[in-house]
């Protein structure tokens, strides 16, 4: 399955992400995580990239889960300390669910990271997706590391301005993260403006059709994957709503 058509991978990522957003029950989410992991593994997901990302995000995942575990106060009390109920059933379930949701979304990003961007473009345009759009998809995938870099520069420089992250109160920390996003957004807007100007200057988009060098054909295994995976997902969605 390593050489599965890139369109199928894109399809896989879109479906998995949608399901992850749809499901709000930890048991379903767990099944989804396991299925995604297995399929991704056979697709040749880049586990190196994935685990590096995951390590960077574990703290965030943990905080997100913890916040929900503590603040959702319905259902049976599970952990009671000195007569004060700290953890409720609903909170715990919600926390687990959210943590797994982010896990799955990160993971599908890793599946795409293992794919050659030329092949993604080529396969999309041959599906009659406008080249401009396919190009945008690729550029987004390509520039993700640069956004990460400008985010980490911003993070460094705000800390060096005397902000000790550990000492900032929770409410103010949210404000801080809002500020941190500003240079990243500004950076990406500037970059995309430069990019589109440079592309137009080189005659990009002057012709509607392009000559393909890589011709990517769907093979039997791709169709098989498509059918099985679609059925499985449709079944999962139906099951999820029927059994609720």
């Amino acid at each position: 399955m390593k050489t599965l058509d890139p369109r199928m991978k894109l399809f896989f990522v879109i479906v998995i992400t949608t399901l992850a957003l749809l499901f709000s029950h930890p048991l379903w989410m767990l099944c989804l995580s396991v299925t995604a992991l297995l399929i991704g593994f056979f697709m040749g997901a880049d586990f190196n990239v994935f685990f590096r990302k995951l390590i960077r995000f574990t703290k965030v995942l943990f905080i997100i889960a913890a916040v929900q575990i503590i603040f959702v106060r319905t259902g049976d009390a599970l952990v009671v300390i000195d007569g004060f109920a700290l953890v409720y059933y609903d909170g715990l379930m919600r926390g687990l669910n959210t943590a797994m949701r982010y896990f799955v979304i990160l993971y599908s990003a890793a599946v795409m990271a293992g794919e050659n961007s030329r092949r993604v473009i080529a396969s999309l345009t041959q599906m009659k997706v406008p080249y401009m759009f396919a190009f945008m998809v690729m550029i987004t995938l390509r520039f993700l590391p640069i956004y990460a870099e400008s985010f980490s520069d911003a993070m460094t420089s705000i800390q060096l301005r005397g902000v000790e992250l550990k000492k900032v109160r929770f409410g103010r920390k949210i404000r801080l993260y809002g500020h941190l996003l500003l240079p990243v957004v500004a950076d990406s807007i500037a970059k995309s403006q430069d990019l589109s100007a440079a592309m137009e200057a080189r005659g990009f988009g002057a012709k509607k059709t392009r000559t393909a060098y890589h011709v990517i054909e769907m093979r039997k295994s791709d169709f098989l994957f498509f059918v099985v995976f679609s059925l499985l997902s449709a079944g999962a969605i139906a099951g999820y709503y029927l059994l609720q």
Partner: protein
Amino acid sequence: MPETAIRLKDAIFTYPQSGFKVICEDLSLNTDETALVTGKNGSGKTTLLKLCCGILRPESGTLFIFGEDANKQSLGKIGQNVGYLFQEPSRQLFAATVWDEMTFIGGILGEDPEAIKERAESLLRRFNMLDMRERSVYRLSRGEKQRLAIAAILMRKIRYLILDEPTTGLDGENKKALIEVIESLQNDGIGIAIISHDRGIINCCGQKRIHVEGGRVVQ
């Protein structure tokens, strides 16, 4: 009172992606002098100065900041004493307007609003930017962004400032304004390290030369 602000001793650092290595036996930067860091493109100037303020951490060796071992200090702690101006000004501006840029960190740290206001006003006045206080940060020219970034760094009472090629892309007028800022910081007793190839900077500000070649300091 002149002091050793930064001392980097027996430090070794390697970029894992490119294998580029910086080795620094013993480098001291003092508050009463302005150090001019020169060297070819890619010789390791930026890397060396990032090691000097904890942005990059050495594999071995020690960074001392005002006499204290700073290897384990957080950037936030180091930032109380040392400021760093990145080569790219737009990555270090975080607010919508000039005034917000100067004041928002004080707000997050829960400092006294009156004191913040006073300090921001006096800094903007000194940098000739007080009448721009309501301007959008993203509509400033490169030179103005650069000046604002320095002014914002100075909202902390730092004692040492590192500038990475601050004159890149500035015209004569803006360069002159920047040099004036640097001179006024020298008069305040703030030590400065500047990476620069600029004649104007070299002639007016450099008192101590640090030349970098192939990742090593050759004085």
